[in-house]
């Protein structure tokens, strides 16, 4: 075990993967000698050479197009999109190419070895274009997996699992935790299962569900609620696609209430899908409407960042509304 922040855990996972498999290649804007704008790829070029860790020109559609071809050829690309806000030039390559490659070829070819890493989320004074949480756009795309870690331990285990998984994975790193989240991380190789949610805290009155950086928000709100005698069950969804409905449904059947928190705007956010599925699975167990605490349906504002965020106070108020419905 070593104390690592999330960036060091990501770096450790990349070193582990590149050491174990010489087909793993890491590339993106500024990821080479410089080590990436957040330093997640520090020292990889020195360790593994310029052919396996390299800068690309400034072209997100090019990075993912290139990565798709490389994956189809049999290599294991780990492509970085510098900010999730800038993934949209690559939207066509991801949605129409990465995700459909195996299906359209009847399983003859695939991009299954591809992992796309991208920092997402707000709370870092990033304004409109360094703060977005675009997971719901991609959750609508059959063929992709979407994974979000909440701490350094998960970041390493889930990233290694994503790289080795035989499906393309969008690995979304909550950038406000990059240095803020520090924890024990095994130095050895380990993986965590994709598609599995984790019950972080057992409770009996309401289920709180989030992922990534919002986990600490719902944990804080749960602590406030417990002062009022409300017992919260806390779940980290971990994987957005495919998501672990059974774990969430089992919890909601027990607590009778569900609150979902995400940073992305409310309308058509992934909470909407969860709410729809859980009401189907748990209709007769529900004691109150399923509640969403989300970002506003606005672009991500710089000056009003605090007001925009679905913070612990908004979550705490929503918990009380649910419980006292």
């Amino acid at each position, binding site marked *: 075990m070593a104390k690592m922040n999330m960036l060091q855990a990501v770096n450790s996972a990349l070193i582990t993967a590149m050491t174990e498999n010489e*087909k793993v*290649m890491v590339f993106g804007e500024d990821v080479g000698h410089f080590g990436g704008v957040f330093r997640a790829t520090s020292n990889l070029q020195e360790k593994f050479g310029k*052919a*396996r860790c*390299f800068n*690309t*020109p400034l*072209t997100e*559609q*090019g990075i*993912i*197009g*290139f*990565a*798709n*071809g*490389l*994956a*189809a*050829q*049999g*290599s294991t*690309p780990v492509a970085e999109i510098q900010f999730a806000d800038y993934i949209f*030039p690559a939207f*066509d*390559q991801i949605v*129409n*190419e990465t995700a*459909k*490659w*195996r*299906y*359209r*070829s*009847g*399983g*003859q*070819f*695939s991009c*299954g070895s591809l992992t796309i890493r991208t920092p997402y989320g707000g709370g870092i004074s990033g304004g409109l274009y360094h703060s977005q949480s675009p997971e719901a756009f991609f959750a609508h795309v*059959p*063929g992709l*997996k979407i994974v979000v870690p909440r701490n350094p331990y998960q970041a390493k285990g889930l990233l290694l699992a994503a790289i080795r998984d*035989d*499906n393309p994975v969008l690995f979304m790193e909550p950038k406000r935790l990059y240095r803020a989240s520090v924890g024990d991380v095994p130095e050895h190789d380990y993986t965590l299962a994709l*598609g599995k949610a984790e019950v972080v805290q057992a409770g009996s009155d309401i289920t709180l569900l989030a992922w990534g950086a919002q986990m600490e928000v719902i944990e804080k709100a749960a602590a406030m609620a417990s002062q009022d005698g409300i017992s919260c069950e806390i779940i980290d969804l971990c994987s957005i696609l*495919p998501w672990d*409905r*059974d774990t969430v449904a089992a919890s909601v059947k027990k607590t009778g209430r569900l609150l979902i928190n995400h940073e992305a705007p409310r309308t058509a956010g992934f909470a909407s899908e969860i709410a729809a599925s859980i009401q189907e699975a748990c209709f007769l167990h529900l004691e109150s409407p399923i509640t969403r605490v989300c970002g506003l349906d606005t672009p991500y504002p710089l000056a009003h960042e605090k007001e925009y965020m679905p913070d612990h106070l908004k979550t705490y108020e929503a918990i009380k509304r649910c419980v006292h419905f």
Partner: protein
Amino acid sequence: MKDRNHLSNVGLTNQVEVISNGLLDIPMVQLLQADGSLHGDATLPDMSEELAKKILHTMQYIRILDERMVAAQRQGRISFYLACTGEEASTIGSAAALEPQDMIMSQYREQGALAFRGFTTEQFMNQMFSNEKELNKGRQMPIHYGVKDLNFMTISSPLGTQIPQASGYAYGQKMAGVPAVTICYFGEGAASEGDFHAGMNMAAVLNCPVIFLCRNNGYAISTPSEEQFAGDGIASRGIGYGIKTIRVDGNDVMAVYAATAKARQIALTEHCPVLIEAMTYRLAAHSTSDDPTGYRSKDEEERWRAKDPVQRFAAWMQSKGWYNEEESKAHIEQTRQEVLSQLKQVEKVPVCHINEIINDVYDTPPWHLKEQLAELKAHIAKYPEAYPKTAGRL
């Protein structure tokens, strides 16, 4: 830290000079003239009689296949088709200069390259009828071929996406140390897509052994090339990216063959991309959904018909004594019969089992797809007459 100077190659002048379009005068390589005779003192590439015959037969084969499948579409037997009439030399001549281990990433009008690789009439038909024998499981519209054994990547409809993909594929080949290149086909219209810029630039910067072959056929559906770009075609862009570039007469199979052979050698030995712009003409409609009389004249088409690549090559073969009129007619007739009989056979083959609807989305179907399949099958069982293709075997 390395010391760099990005002005090191920049000359100085004290005059305000404006560089104009057309400064680069990129000529078009032609070895055979329209009548099949040698262009000047052109040196032809080494080509055996056997290879020349294979090229000619493939050109004739594709022309018949195109003709029959357009007819089949008109009869309502298939939903869609896309002929390559007029462009056979560009695709078949280039494919002939490759090795079987080279990956082909095509746009959609490269059935000639696929036929040259050995794709059979039955395989063509299976794809067009989306049946259960189709290698891609009948999931895409007709003409979206793909066959792993022949190193022919499954086609996708979005235009130009294959360009950066080919750069990546070629980079992987280089890293794996295999003596192979990737060829990437696209049209001059697709070259307006952002993926063209992305893919060309990445190939140049990352030294990818890829051959970009642009079929400049004058039209993107109805849009003529002068409404597509203002510069000197696609070739001039290659120079801008720092990519070695050849412009070639795309109706001259010898010139295309020679250019591709040279490009392959450069890509493989120098680890870099090469761009070929093949100047040709789409004598066919864009697809069976298109009617060219709405955007071009018969006279224009006739001028290009006179440059027909198949007749040109046949005329050259005749001058070599490699062409026999009787033999050629027999081959054409035999092909026509084969296409017709396969068409009849393949029409009877059913579509894939309904279970295939959820396979290959992921490596194994996750829970939500299994649930959806179970619901779907229960529904089909309830209304079998509404789903005749699959209700018979659930």
